[in-house]
């Protein structure tokens, strides 16, 4: 029971998607001592840096080859090699991840000349930040991974394009279960204390050893290719739903327990019960409330399930790309929950705005770009994901695992109470 609206107009107004560069830069910054290098005009690095530092409120180092007209005529390869040399001389990084841009892809730079760096092909005209993140993880593993020497009872987790808080939740819960793990890549490095430089638990060495793990957990499209690549080395590939909401988190932890043999400890059960305690307390506020969700494909799917879990009704979902899998999943969710959902694919927030004007909802879930709808239609916006630039601390608020479910349920309830009861 879904209505599918696909927007094929030549004009997009407020599309909630970024280009591949953001995804690659994010994945790279989660590696200890790694530097992202954008091969293109200097605007690309400045734009990405500015957006990310507005969200994470952290200093960002993103290098650029700063191409200009003169260089383009001769091709940019020489300048790229020059940039890599300069970076090595100046900072001696452990890893350099080179990204291409529209410019260098269109003029057809030959990147075969780069031997000692990871190269990710990221023209803005194909894919989004999700694809960028996915292929970055794969290319980084591909560049570093050797053959498996000795299988260890440890797992790899590819967190997806999420916030430091979410990775922190993953680490916390896996540690509570006593599971040895490597996060690919550890985004908690984007939330450092004062006076501390960026540092990550995921080192180049750890990534090299990821082939020795027994399994790789990835969520949805984000990290799928990385998991598939590691499968070649005999590492089990487990592609699950994002651990958003109680049920999805349960499924994730049960799978982890099944694979590693680790028990779900009392501490974890306690964490779950804390969350459920809080969620039950707000359930009378959330029950029956209508919600619209937008964002990246797999997060929207998991968030929809979470919304039904707390008794809300999902009325509209929107993704910025075309995706058949998404439509099928939403159809399944709609039928299972006996609801009718408007599904927008390849769409933009202006389209959602027009829809919500005639079909109002009680809460909107998405990143801060939803603020135009929220302000005009007076719909409270639950800020999740990336980017959230107009508020503080949202990179420290999880959506993952039990703590994330609790936080979202409580914050949504507060938004609704604030709106209707003052």
């Amino acid at each position, binding site marked *: 029971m879904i209505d599918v609206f696909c927007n094929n107009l030549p004009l997009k107004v407020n*599309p909630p998607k970024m280009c591949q560069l953001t995804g690659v830069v994010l994945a790279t910054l989660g590696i200890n001592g790694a530097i992202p290098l954008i091969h293109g*005009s200097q605007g690309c690095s400045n734009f990405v840096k500015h957006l990310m530092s507005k969200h994470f409120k952290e200093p960002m180092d993103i290098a650029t080859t700063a191409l200009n007209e003169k260089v383009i005529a001769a091709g940019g390869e020489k300048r790229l090699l020059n940039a890599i040399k300069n970076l090595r001389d100046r900072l001696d990084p452990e890893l350099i991840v080179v990204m291409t841009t529209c410019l260098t892809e269109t003029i057809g730079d030959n990147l075969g000349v780069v031997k000692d760096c990871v190269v990710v092909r990221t023209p803005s005209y194909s894919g989004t930040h999700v694809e960028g993140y996915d292929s970055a993880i794969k290319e980084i593993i591909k560049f570093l991974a050797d053959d498996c020497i000795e299988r260890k009872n440890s797992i790899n987790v590819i967190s997806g394009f999420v916030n430091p808080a979410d990775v922190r939740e993953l680490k916390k819960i896996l540690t509570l279960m006593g599971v040895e793990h490597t996060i690919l890549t550890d985004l908690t490095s984007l939330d450092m204390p004062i006076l501390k430089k960026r540092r990550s638990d995921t080192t180049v060495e750890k990534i090299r050893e990821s082939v020795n793990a027994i399994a790789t957990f990835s969520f949805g499209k984000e990290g799928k290719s990385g998991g598939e690549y590691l499968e070649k080395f005999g590492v089990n590939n487990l592609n699950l739903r994002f651990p958003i909401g109680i049920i999805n988190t349960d499924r994730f932890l049960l799978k982890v327990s099944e694979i590693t043999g680790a028990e779900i400890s009392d501490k974890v059960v306690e964490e779950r019960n804390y969350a459920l305690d809080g969620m039950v307390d707000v359930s009378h506020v959330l029950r029956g409330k209508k919600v619209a969700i937008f964002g990246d494909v797999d997060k929207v799917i998991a968030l929809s399930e979470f919304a039904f879990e707390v008794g809300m009704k999902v009325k509209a979902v929107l993704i910025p790309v075309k995706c058949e899998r998404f439509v099928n999943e939403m159809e399944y969710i709609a039928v299972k929950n006996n609801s009718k959902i408007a599904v927008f694919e390849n769409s933009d927030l202006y389209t959602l705005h027009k829809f919500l004007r005639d079909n109002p909802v009680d809460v909107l879930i998405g990143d801060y770009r939803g603020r135009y709808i929220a302000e005009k239609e007076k719909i409270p916006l639950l800020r999740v994901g990336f980017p959230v630039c107009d508020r503080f601390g949202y990179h420290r608020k999880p959506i993952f695992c039990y703590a994330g479910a609790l936080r979202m349920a409580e914050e949504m309830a507060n938004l609704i109470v604030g709106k209707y009861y003052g």
Partner: protein
Amino acid sequence: MVSLESCFETKAGDFTERGCSLLGCRVVVCGQVKNVVHLVHSPIGCAYYSWDYRMDTKGYCFTTDMNEIDIVFGGENKLLKAVLLAIEEFSPDAVFIYETCSTSIIGDDIQAVAKKASDLTGIPVIAFNCAGFRGKSQNFGHRIANLGLFNIILDGERKEMVNTVNLIGDFNKKDSEILERLFGEIGIKVICTFTANATIDKIRDMKNAELNIVMCSKSSIFLAELMEEKYGIPYVELNFFGLDNCCKSLYKISEYFNNLNVEEVIHENMSWIKMKIDKYKNILEDKRVFICHGAQRAIYWIKPFEELGMKVVGIATHFGGEIPNFDGLVVDNLSSDELEKILEKVRPDIVVSDDKIRHLVHKMSIPFFNGRGQNRGYSGFEGFLNFAKDVGETLNAKLWYLARDFGGFNV
């Protein structure tokens, strides 16, 4: 005086703070013109990142969202359809089309599309050839923006209006509000603040002014030159940061007009402001400032800090240029790692910059102050009081002392 080459090219491998022409054109200059569809003809990246780049703007993001097929077959048709759709849906005063690296390289003729769309609809459609690879920094984008917007000024005949000016190169709404009020007091009307409060109608009327006042010469002197050439409107470079600069600038303006009550306004303002500023002086006395701005603001800020009894110990610019009457440390286009090293060495009491390096400075636990004045303006007399207050409060915040004492719990 330390002189720099006008603008070094960015070195390959730098962590530069510089942006591209698209940034200069779309974000800095054009972005604030109201009721205009700012259509970025690009794949998603450029359009998304330039959307609300400045924290104080709120606008929609319009893009043709070019995909692989469009790049192969060209995007002119798509662009034309997009422009027509946007006009139909949003009925704007004008449409601005911005080109980007990819659409420029594949050779989309956005000027032709703009002309066609304008002919079809009768609404001004202006195309900016501001692909990111053009020029050494965003500064080139300012130039392209000036040239493009001059087309709007050219529309219609000049009808000179007495006692009117334009403020050119002021991009801060709060600053422009203060200055428009101040000019009102001395008997002058501001036709357009370019582009902090600009609309298409205001820009069109700019040609009626008697005098152009250029605030940020780096970004906008080109427009003033064009207007002088075409209409014979004189221009003068002034700034209103600090009491001394403010008074001098007002006297300078009075040379161009008759019967302005400049003396009176200066006297009135000075009488109350001195007393209020003195309150902050004991906090600020002898404190060491490091300025990190695009060249223009770096120059303008030296004097006001001195008036507060502070000492500027270093200046880092983004786009080069000369810093007159200054004999301290001057560096240009720093990589953020280099900036960090310099700050560690200089250890200033406060750093003034814009949001780009805010978090780097915060991490080092050095007091940071946003010189752009996003919450309130720093121009004019009342602006200077805001300035003194904000600098004083920033410096005096307890948190810095706590943070620097880190790790010790030495309470």
